[in-house]
């Protein structure tokens, strides 16, 4: 919408930050500067307002500790050379970019005979393993908005991580059957009293790493079996039974769980217990469960990888066909063991987050980053290729945490010479095919 001179307003913009993918953001530009943002949460405001900051000015190649600017073509050529010469390349990241980019990425991994993995491996990987074992009863966020009278957050703190989750989808929105906050009960289960817990009607402080015990006790309690311990996971038996009564007496309940459950002791066993609890609860009432996905398109990354290869993450294509063996073909395990000899990282920063051994091994091998911004990883990268920001400077499809696809918008032009990561990856794929053909 063009209004006054230099003033441009984009409505219904999809926010490319967290798994909520709020799509009602209104962005006002004055001469290429964002001057107003409506409906944004604090994180979204930061993302939009600072989109121009910390950008890599041009493609960089690092030699002997010195970075030098090169043209995109040179960077692509160097990248391809590294990848083609690698025997076991790893292609990692993919959760903060569009599905289109990942599609090219999978084709590239297939062409190279490498491993492609997304950041699921470090967040909700155990969730997927749990689902593959016991299944999952889930729903979209709109179902929660209209029907849920009991909302449980377990090991997640949406007030900080998904700021609009409570107001837009779960606790306070006006639904068809639930009009306001007073029609819903909020339960928070966490190891500490988080900001979300302060809003809760019922807060249960579980001992760290004891989620599995609590889940098992709850599974017994909802079936009216006797819990023999007096205290389980730091919680008195009576309180567990009260919680169980609350769970089975609701009309439509939902559990949202975060990394507090997936990454604490027990990992996928915790998830299996949680999924089984929800499955058992469906014998008594209606209950659903949903992981709180973090990166805006981590759900999409799983979906695309699943439909193209049959597996959601950690796909090894070295044999010419997809194979999947979490623990062996997951990115962190490969890095920890120091197996790969080149890494292409798209829109992720493993150097800042990965365990020490993985980082040490990462420093020994050539790293290529394709990322709009400067990250710790891009600073040590052999090749760093900047791109346009998806959702601000480039279009693309992303999937909300409940699997609803949305089209991210291009609301402004990228800096001159910058193209989207889809374009960059297509160039790399073409160059790789050329170099492979020549060798």
């Amino acid at each position: 919408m063009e209004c006054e001179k230099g003033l441009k307003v984009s409505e219904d913009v999809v926010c490319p930050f967290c798994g909520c993918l709020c799509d009602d953001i209104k962005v006002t530009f004055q001469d290429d500067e964002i001057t107003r943002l409506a409906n944004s949460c604090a994180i979204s405001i930061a993302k939009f307002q600072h989109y121009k900051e910390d950008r890599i000015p041009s493609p960089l190649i690092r030699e002997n500790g010195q970075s030098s600017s090169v043209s995109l073509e040179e960077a692509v050529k160097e990248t391809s050379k590294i990848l083609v010469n690698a025997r076991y390349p790893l292609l990692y990241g993919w959760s903060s970019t569009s599905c289109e980019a990942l599609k090219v990425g999978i084709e590239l991994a297939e062409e190279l005979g490498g491993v492609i993995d997304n950041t699921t491996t470090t967040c909700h990987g155990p969730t997927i393993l749990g689902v593959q074992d016991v299944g999952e009863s889930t729903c979209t966020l709109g179902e929660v908005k209209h029907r849920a009278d009991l909302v449980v957050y377990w090991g997640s703190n949406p007030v900080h991580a998904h700021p609009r989750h409570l107001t837009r989808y779960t606790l306070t929105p006006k639904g068809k059957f639930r009009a306001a906050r007073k029609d819903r009960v909020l339960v928070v289960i966490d190891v500490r009293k988080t900001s979300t817990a302060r809003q809760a009607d019922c807060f249960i402080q579980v001992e760290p790493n004891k989620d599995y015990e609590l889940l098992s006790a709850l599974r017994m309690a909802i079936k009216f079996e006797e819990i023999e311990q007096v205290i389980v996971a730091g919680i008195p038996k009576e309180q567990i039974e009260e919680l169980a009564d609350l769970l089975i007496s609701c009309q439509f309940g939902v559990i949202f769980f975060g990394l507090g459950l997936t990454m604490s002791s027990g990992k996928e066993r915790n998830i299996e217990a949680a999924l089984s609890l929800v499955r058992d609860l469906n014998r008594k009432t209606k209950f659903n469960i949903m992981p709180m996905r973090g990166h805006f398109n981590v759900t999409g990354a799983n979906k695309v990888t699943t439909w193209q290869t049959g597996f959601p993450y950690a796909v090894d294509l070295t044999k010419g066909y997809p194979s999947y063996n979490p623990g062996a073909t997951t990115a962190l395990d490969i890095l920890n063991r120091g197996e790969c000899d080149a890494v292409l990282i798209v829109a992720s920063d493993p150097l800042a987050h990965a365990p020490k051994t993985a980082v040490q091994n990462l420093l020994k091998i050539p790293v290529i980053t394709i990322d709009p911004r400067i990250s710790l990883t891009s600073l040590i990268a052999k090749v760093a290729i900047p791109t346009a920001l998806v959702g601000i400077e480039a279009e693309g499809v992303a999937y909300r945490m409940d699997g609803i696809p949305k089209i991210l918008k291009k609301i402004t032009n990228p800096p001159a010479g910058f193209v989207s990561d889809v374009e960059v990856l297509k160039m790399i794929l073409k160059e790789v095919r050329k170099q492979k053909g020549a060798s």
Partner: protein
Amino acid sequence: MELLIKNGILYDPANSVNGEEVEICIKDGKVVEKINQRKAEIIDASDMLVMPGGVDIHSHIAGPKVNAGRLLCPEDHRTRVRCAECFRNCEIKSPITRSGTGCAVPSVFTTGHIYSGMGYTTVIEPASPPLKTLHTHEELNDIPLIDKACFLLFGNNWLVMDYIKEGRIEECAAYVGWVLRSVKGYAIKIVCPGGVESWGWGGNVHSMDDHVPYFDVTPRDIVRGLCKVNQLLNLPHTIHVHTINLGTPGNYRYLIETMDCVRDLQVEDEPVIHMTHCQFNSYGGVDWRSLSSKADEVAKYVNAHNHVTIDMGQIIFTQTVTMTGDGPFEYLLHQISGNKWMNTDLEVESGGGLVPIRYNRKNYVHAVMWTIGLELALLVKDPWRVFFSTDHPNGGPFINYPKVFAWLMSKKARDKVTKRLPRLARVRSNITSIDREYDFYELAIITRSATAKALKLQNKGHLGLGADADVSIYDLNPKEVDPSVDYKQVGKALFKTAYTIKGGEIVAKKGVIKKCKSGITFWVNPQVTEELNSSIMPELTEKFRDYYTINLQNYGVPENMLIDQQAIEVKSKV
């Protein structure tokens, strides 16, 4: 590019060609009268069976639910799958094809390769929730070598139920038309009308006159309402209905009741309703112990009433994954089988569920189910009104179609299975008393011509002048082979084409893909009057804001999201 198919023995039921030696000339992807024979590539199809490319009307190949199946069942991607030349546990990348895995829920590229190798050229995804249809289209885009379309779920849509309750059928038609246009769907699919909405509260509907909680409509109202909407919009396909009480003993009554509830809406002998995967809805008895086949009753009704078409939903004794928009049914199946269960409720529009299952020949219930699908196909007299399907992957993976072809074409093949079924299953069904055997002409009808006709895809399912040059040529001499005796040979030959021709190009030879290209996605664009269209928008905008968690402007699939598409313009009556 020009292509000449010589000496093949053609079965083209739409043009009444029954096993004649005909030359087929192909130019620019179409069947033409003549071509320059010196320039053309010539396929010598001597002693070979030639048919139009297969048209599968009901096969879950893409979309959120299918992908959930892939996620839920990594085990399906490790077992028997296809490689370029033979069966192994994978499909290996080749210079022209991408790699893949899977059997019951194969990955997208493999789906296209297997279908094409079997001679299928058009496949319909029958259940896509409009809100997630962008996902369905993303997958359809990635499936090579076949043309496709998707049906949209409307049977539990809140806005539809509101309109029907208020008796505003014309506005309902405008809304349904708007959705079809926005998300690029092909037809109206109804799954367990009202039941999936009840499942939002953990309930279900159990008769055609049960009330849907809070909406004050009945399954009967929904089916009748959407049938009228379908007629008002003048859509190419009829309503495609998966009715209530699927997979429960005694449910054949509801199947017949559903068909009968729209009987009075028929005009000019045209079908007005398609009942899908009827095998799952033709059960007699009152509980699992007394389960029996009522395929004869269903067939009797279908034979006597031409307002209805059905498809089989045959099962195959193998490992598969059931997936449907019928959430409550999948929960029931999970409780019966104890297998892992996935449930996916979807706001405002629908829901769904998945449960992996192994159909076991020794299981009496599964054995009865096996007989019912075949009985339906054999007892319905007019092959133009009973279509082939296994409701892939619910009844069995589509890779097994040739097995079912053999059962249809040979009593001997059926008897071989029947005699190994539990005795109770033999007693409770009529399969042993049926002598009918399909011939190649009838097989071509139920797998190609009738389905294309039902979808009103005018250039598909036949090889008359102007038809799309989608041809399957099998290495089987129909003049010499007697399918009732040599059923094994028939099954083997129908599994791999000698040549598959898609859009005038040879894409597969001996079941191996020789050329990879994308297929077309069909969608309908119903043209409703501008007045009616604009009259619904204010209310739609308001309801959309209240009901959905996404904005109206972000709903829908823009045309540029579809790689290769063809919009079918229809002039609506409103």
